[in-house]
């Protein structure tokens, strides 16, 4: 996958005027898609962690309550 948007570093440096100057997929559809994927992954991880922890704690509490007769 060729993601370098210039022919050479010289060309990239010439474009380095503080606005674009070399950023992989900058301001293009690709960068938006990547951002959406990263945000989705982050949220999905949080949801997984929440559900996984809740399930784990329920299991532990049931075991302990049975052991202690509570």
């Amino acid at each position, binding site marked *: 996958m060729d993601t370098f948007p210039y022919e050479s570093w010289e060309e990239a440096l010439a474009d380095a005027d503080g606005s*674009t100057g070399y*950023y*992989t997929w*900058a*301001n293009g559809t690709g960068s938006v898609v990547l*951002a959406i994927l990263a945000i989705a992954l982050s949220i999905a991880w949080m949801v997984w962690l929440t559900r996984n*922890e809740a399930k784990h*704690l329920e299991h532990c509490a049931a075991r302990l309550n049975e052991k202690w007769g*509570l």
Partner: protein
Amino acid sequence: MFAQETVDLTATVFTEAYYFFTVALMWLLHVGFMTYEAGVSRRKNVMATAIKNILTIAVVTPTFYYLGWWAYFCMQEGLLPTTTADGNQPEGSGFYFCGDGYGLGWDASMGPNLGDNITAVFWAAFVLFAWTTGSIMSGAIIERVRTSAYLWLTALMGGLIWVIAAAWGWSYGGWLTLHFGYHDFAASGLVHGVAGIFTLGVLFNLGPRIGRYDRDGNARSFKPHNLHMTLQGLMLIFTGFYAFYAACLAITANQVPGWANIYFSPATLGAITLTITMGFAGGFAGGYFFSQRDPFWTISGGLAGVVAVSAGADIYSPSLVFILAFLMAGFAYYVGSFLENKMRLDDAVGAVAVHGFAGFTGVILLGIFASGYPTGAYNVETTLLGQLVGVAAMFPLAFLSGYGASWILKKLNLLRVLPAVELEGLDIAEYGEDFFPEMGVRGEVIVEADGTNVPAEVVLRQAMADAMAVSNGHEIDLTKEEADDGHISV
């Protein structure tokens, strides 16, 4: 011409390197918070406590990258985003802007841009501030909060809530800066105050640890499993504080004195060095005096003292700093005692008093002792009224968001671990392992309100039985034999 270009490039690279190394040193804040909180926790909760601190980075960083950085530039005029490119940008400044994609996760400003050395390292300094807000809350709610609940809360606070406060009062074009001359150099209010008061809102819903209060409502003490680790953690936090202060400065290489605060008013690295050092000195002395030699409050007094003087770190007289820090250490001690004994809020590390109340009080103190200083590009005078308006805006923002978010988690039964799990300890329950097999399990001791040491087993199981009796509607009275049956190690 060539020489001027070289000078400019050198200044740019120096600025880039300066922020990079403040970021690297600010990691010590988080090493310190983790060490401190792990030391404060009981042996059965050490790993769960430490993991919570580490995962702070996993959630606050993306939240701040995708939302917080954009909010900082786009919410300077209030709770609604500014949508015009120059809506809150002082005319001709060219500094901050919103509406053309700057700061968004797919914009050229947020990646490897050969034409922008500064945005990324400046962002990184801010993300370290964001982690700090999470870590401030983290210690207060240890040993009973769910890891996931903490992470949702810290994502909200670190990724958005404190950022809104910063946009309002810690930016070039914030409404508090432009209209009220609000001055909070090293974030007494908008980092420490906001994080502390957000935590206060959470504590109301979270409740105390099982057994923290006796049946008459008197506070018991849980002994830290490793006090040395706790003190070492605080010393690491203090070291990181110097970097935090340094990161609050901007380099203005083409203008005397070469440095400016975040409002672009002149400042120096020397001034803030004096403030932080004299602040710690006054705070430690005050903490030792007011708490009558209590080690925890001696060192927390140093923190409270510095938190309170941070607002004026660029302009205060060092002597004033010493006096204020001394007194604010005592203030934090008494507020902390009030919250613990009268309000029955179980703040395991005193964060609400040390950060929340000392922080916002520090903002008000600046209006008393340093009014008249011009702030920002338009030289708006700092006043007591302006500082009070800042506190009046940020305090409810922090409290209501913390209370509201934790209330929702509580209603979903996702805020707190289950009682049996809390009693056994979070390390075994969450990770299924005793992480310190080399340290034999010894009977834990709890300090009763009258100062006597008692075995924890009986106290904690009875407290749990009390809690279950309330929820189940019938009385459970454990015998000593039941409590000592060896099934659990608390």
